């Protein structure tokens, strides 16, 4: 067993790669790894990557060779690289390109398949799930219907045959879009290196291998800018899908601020306004709206209304199931997914990858924090006890009730008093799930409250006041979990959450991650020794795996 303890990598036999983050050559090795391995967890000091077929094929599609990967692993590994891993890298990368998908020379509705050898064609013909999609194309060729492009690639991938998709994309209507040099506030607009890199990795110089995929960046890292950079590369009409009306307005603001587009070229398509322009920003909600369960989705036509050259999915992990189907039919168009947390509680992350495209870029939160691009965040779990016999009520409650009782524990308010006193000079968001509790908090501190019932314009006014510093304390329900840019918020207090939802925790934390001098504080108030603490443990594991510093404190302290 040959050991080189000074190297930063440990390559495990199952394809897991551990990287020491305090190693002097961490950054170089991280960049190397990120090209062919997926970042799984990034707790402090030791990040875990995983090499699997999909990531290797992505690497192959971006031009990375087998030798580059093998040599790099050998160079940086503490132990000899497991032969199994070397064999996997070798075999997997060699498979890429054996099956190619090309434009049909005669029939625009078909896509032709090209196989390296007749033997490969024979093997593909034996894959049951794929066989039904194949169409005879004369005597010599096989083809698929253009509409089956996504599903074909998805099934081929599952069968271990990555398809090199050289069919290209449908070119949308051209749009002269350029990034602005100066923003509205007079400051120069600069795209950060990692934003530029992620856009480049997605676009791949316009080659057919690029043009679709997901970019994973922490909240506050500027995913909108990445999308703007991508739009500036594609230069075609763009449809953007966002989570809610506030997020739509924010997208419109950002595009107008950071591109050369005018108000007449950028439209919002929501419940309130329905403008279809060269760049249209719509909500997932409006797309999936229908009058009754049996009725058709009334607005799905939006995908077809214009000759879009690019579709951007903001918070792609929230992609609703009906949009899955529509997206599967849009494989001919360029697609960009943006997210901070590619975890779905329903476990359908794989579907997102296969429909929108593979993960093209991922960056650990710590790296951005070290560079000062996002705030240095500290997470606190504050454990609160019961008061005035509430413990007894909790014990007597039915199992289903217990979580709620623990979440709305009145004793949390005393701790909230202390925290608000401590942060009275800061911009504080109090975030909760249970409306009664939030109303009580709003009354107690005479602070404005935003819930799902708050009308859009009123929300915008309140968010605006908060941004300007006119309001120092804002109470919000889970409507503010996503896509709300509140750059000055530096303290968030989560008084109740949704059963340990990992993405909710990360998104709520994301509200305070916009860079600021004194860092950010994220408090979760948890009732001690209850169901809530059990769920909090799951969230704790998730956040620590993401690399956030996590402290546990007693409410009495």
């Amino acid at each position, binding site marked *: 067993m040959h050991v080189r303890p000074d190297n930063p990598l440990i390559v495990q036999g199952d394809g897991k790669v551990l990287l020491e983050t305090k190693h002097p050559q961490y950054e170089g090795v991280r960049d190397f790894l990120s090209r062919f391995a997926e970042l799984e967890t990034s*707790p402090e000091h030791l990040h875990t990557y995983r090499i699997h077929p999909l990531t290797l094929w992505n690497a192959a599609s971006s031009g990375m060779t087998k030798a580059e990967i093998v040599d790099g692993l050998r160079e940086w590994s503490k132990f000899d690289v497991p032969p199994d891993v070397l064999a996997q890298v070798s075999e997997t990368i060699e498979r890429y390109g054996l099956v190619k998908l090309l434009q049909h020379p005669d029939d625009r509705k078909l896509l032709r398949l090209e196989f390296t050898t007749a033997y490969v064609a024979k093997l593909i013909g034996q894959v049951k799930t794929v066989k039904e999609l194949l169409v005879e194309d004369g005597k010599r060729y096989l083809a698929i219907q253009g509409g089956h492009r996504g599903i074909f690639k998805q099934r081929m991938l599952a069968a271990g045959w990555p398809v090199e998709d050289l069919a290209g994309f449908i070119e949308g209507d051209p749009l002269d879009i350029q990034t602005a040099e100066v923003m509205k506030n007079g400051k120069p607009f600069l795209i950060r290196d990692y934003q530029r890199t992620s856009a480049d990795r997605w676009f791949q110089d316009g080659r057919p291998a690029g043009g679709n995929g997901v970019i994973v960046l922490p909240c506050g890292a500027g995913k909108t800018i990445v999308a703007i950079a991508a739009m500036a590369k594609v230069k075609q009409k763009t449809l953007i899908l966002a989570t809610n009306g506030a997020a739509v307005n924010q997208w419109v603001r950002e595009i107008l601020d950071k591109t050369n587009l005018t108000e007449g070229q950028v439209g919002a398509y929501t419940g309130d306004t329905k403008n279809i322009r060269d760049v249209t920003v719509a909500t997932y909600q409006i797309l999936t709206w229908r009058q009754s369960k049996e009725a058709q989705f009334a607005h799905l036509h939006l995908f077809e209304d214009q000759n879009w050259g690019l579709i951007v999915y903001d918070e792609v992990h929230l992609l609703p199931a009906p949009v899955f189907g529509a997206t599967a039919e849009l494989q001919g168009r360029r697609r960009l997914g943006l997210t901070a947390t590619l975890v779905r509680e329903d476990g359908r992350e794989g579907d997102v990858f296969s429909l929108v495209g593979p993960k093209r870029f991922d960056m650990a939160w710590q790296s951005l924090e070290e560079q000062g691009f996002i705030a240095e965040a500290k997470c606190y779990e504050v454990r609160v006890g019961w008061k005035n016999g509430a413990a007894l009520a909790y014990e007597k409650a039915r199992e289903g009730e217990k979580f709620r009782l623990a979440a709305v524990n009145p004793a949390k308010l005393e701790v909230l008093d202390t925290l608000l006193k401590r942060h009275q000079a800061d911009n504080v968001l109090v975030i909760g799930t249970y409306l009664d509790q939030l109303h009580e908090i709003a009354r107690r501190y005479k602070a404005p409250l935003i819930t799902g019932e708050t009308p859009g314009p009123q929300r915008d006014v309140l968010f605006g006041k908060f941004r300007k510093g006119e309001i120092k304390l804002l109470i919000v329900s889970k409507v503010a979990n996503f896509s709300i840019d509140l750059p000055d918020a530096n303290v968030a207090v989560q008084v109740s959450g949704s059963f340990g939802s990992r993405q909710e925790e990360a998104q709520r934390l994301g509200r305070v991650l916009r860079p600021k001098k004194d860092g950010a504080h994220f408090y979760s108030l948890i009732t001690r020794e209850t169901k809530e603490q059990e769920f909090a443990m799951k969230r704790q594991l998730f956040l620590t795996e993401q690399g956030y510093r996590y402290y546990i404190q007693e409410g009495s302290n």
Partner: protein
Amino acid sequence: MSNEGQDTAPVDGEGGGRRRRRRRRRRGGGGGGEGASADVLAPQENEGGEGEAGARGRRGRRVFRDDFEAPGAGVPSSGKMVVKPRVHRKKWKPTAGLARRRRMSRGEIDELATYFMKMPEPLVHALYRALGGQPVRVGEHERVVQLTVRALAQGSRLSGLLYQMQPRDRQALAALIQCGGLAHADDFHRELVLMLGGREHDWVRTMQVLADRGLVCGSGPVEEGFYYLVPEPLIDPLLEHLGPELELPTFQHEEIRVVDQRPFCPPLDFSLATLATYMDQHPPKLTQRQEVFKAQKEDLDKFFAQLWAPESEVFNLHYDFLMMHGMIELRGDRVSVNREVVEEWLTLEPEDQRDLVFRALEKRQGMAEWVLWAVHSAKGEWVPEAPLMAIYRRWKRGEDWRERFHKRLYTSPRGADREGYSFSALTNCGVLELGVWGQQKFYRLSPRGLALLDPPDDEGFAKFYLTPNYEIIAPAGLAPVLLFRLGEISELMGCDRANTYKITEISIEQALKKGWRREELLEFLREYSQIGLPQNVETTLRSWMGGDGDVEFHEITALTVHRAHIKRFESLRALRPFIVHRFAPGVYAVDRKRLPEITIVLMEAGFNPGKEIRKYPADDEAAQSRERLHHLLAEAREIREDPVARAQRADTLPADLHAIPGSSVEMQEKKKRPPKGPPRANPQEVRAILEKAIKGNLGLHMTYHSLKDDSRKAVLVVPERIALNREGAAVLVAFDVEAGMRLSYSVAQIERAQTTDGRAGGPG
């Protein structure tokens, strides 16, 4: 076999079984053999001189050893020393090489002279003649011996002699030495024919030539046959000069295919510690045939897929090793891990660990250790099977001849000269690798075998990674005892280049049951985690562990050592088996049943153990007296008062203040005056009243001065007993009638007390 690409392993100090011999000598304290060159011979250890005879068995194996040089702190099963013990290379690794020409010491020269004086004169004369002397001109035999010894002491004379000899003569001599310097003549001729070709009578002639030169002797004229013998003092010098004839050929070719190569071949201590942990956490159930149930075996094989293939002999080696040494045992129908034994094994010195492994391997393949050392001499290159098998055969036959010689059996055993041998036991166990190139087979040490023979000093891993998400990553190369202890406090999740563990509430609960204590566990993680103990992990662990076990009672026989002797005491390895726990330097728990043995070992080591066992408390009466003293002390504390304070308090107690009769406040005073309490009493009086009340089972009115809020309360209690609180002050335990509960009152704070006429009603 083709000789293409073939090379030979240089004969130097790295060579084969000789290393083992060397190591034994040093450790056994014998002076001989220092500096002799190495080869692949081992059976000739049987020729060990008088100095070694006591410390070795017949095949040169150590029977006991009691004079280890290594100091090193004795680490008992408490496993305080969890860093990987450093390998003391010098203790066993020979540094001699061909280049080193050793001068004989005075003692060696005397030993050689004594040996030659006992040899028949013509043999010594023949040797002297071969070395270039003229015995006829010397005359006296004693002088011839002196000159022969002197000639041998000059290495060049013997090398000159060997240089002048025919290659076949040298090969025959080398073969004889490989057989252990002793061989049955007829058999040996056949062995030479088998090995080098030719005809038997040619080899008879060759042996006669060697005899003429005094290098080979016979066992005496017996009709049935005789044995060739090499005079023992000549063995070492001959080894030095017969290098090329003794070495094994080596081979290297890039197309050699390794058969059944495992992707990961860590040192045995790593895999043993991991397997022990796994079995501790997933105790396998055994069938009636004492085999692990199929489903569990499949799980186990899957878990250790990086280390061995399903149904592999590597697993059996691990399992048998653990079982053989009592690290696991069958309890009921499940395998259970003896944690203390595992820890003890893991803290043994690497050499001792290796000896145990060799012993286990010997059970699968005779002379396994010698084979490994022989292959090791090739320095990582491949050793062809045929020569390795030939030398193995000579070792085996040498053993057989030796046994027959000692039994005075002179007939030829025959029959074994074409016996084939296989090294599959060693390849299956994963210590040797089998390579195939065309039809040829080759052997070399696997990384596991190499780590066994040549353990690296330090792999550079002293600590593990504990991340805030409760995961522990422990790279192979970390001290195995550390790995094992990690397995006690966390769940083993994977075995690979870096083992992964997960701390869970259940694992912590299990750790507490295994005897871990809160602070000990936290300290362990803090000390051995590269990044310390994350705050969230520490807080969570504290909440999981609670406060149990902060204080514990032990029933032990303790052994203490004066601090001046601690170092010497801890370096005494013979004591290790008796020490069951090391509390601190100088304080140990020992097995009380083995006190007589411990005493003997201590006395042999020059300690003076006390004759009496000190008892705590020394005797019952003394204990009672001590208790009495404490009671008296408590009483004294009660009545201890600052006289000045008492005087002031007596004058200014508010309860004693009254309005002056006739004054305007007298009437108001009368209204507000609290009901008059019992009479005031000094502490002795209070004590007497209390005792009277307790004895008479009477109620008690008293005024109690609460220091909390400096208030005085009149209470009615039913006294039960007088006890001592944690400060050692006397308190009255009594049932407070009004409060309806049992309370304790500091006796010193009772200012007034009076018994009631009858019992005022108690808890019942």
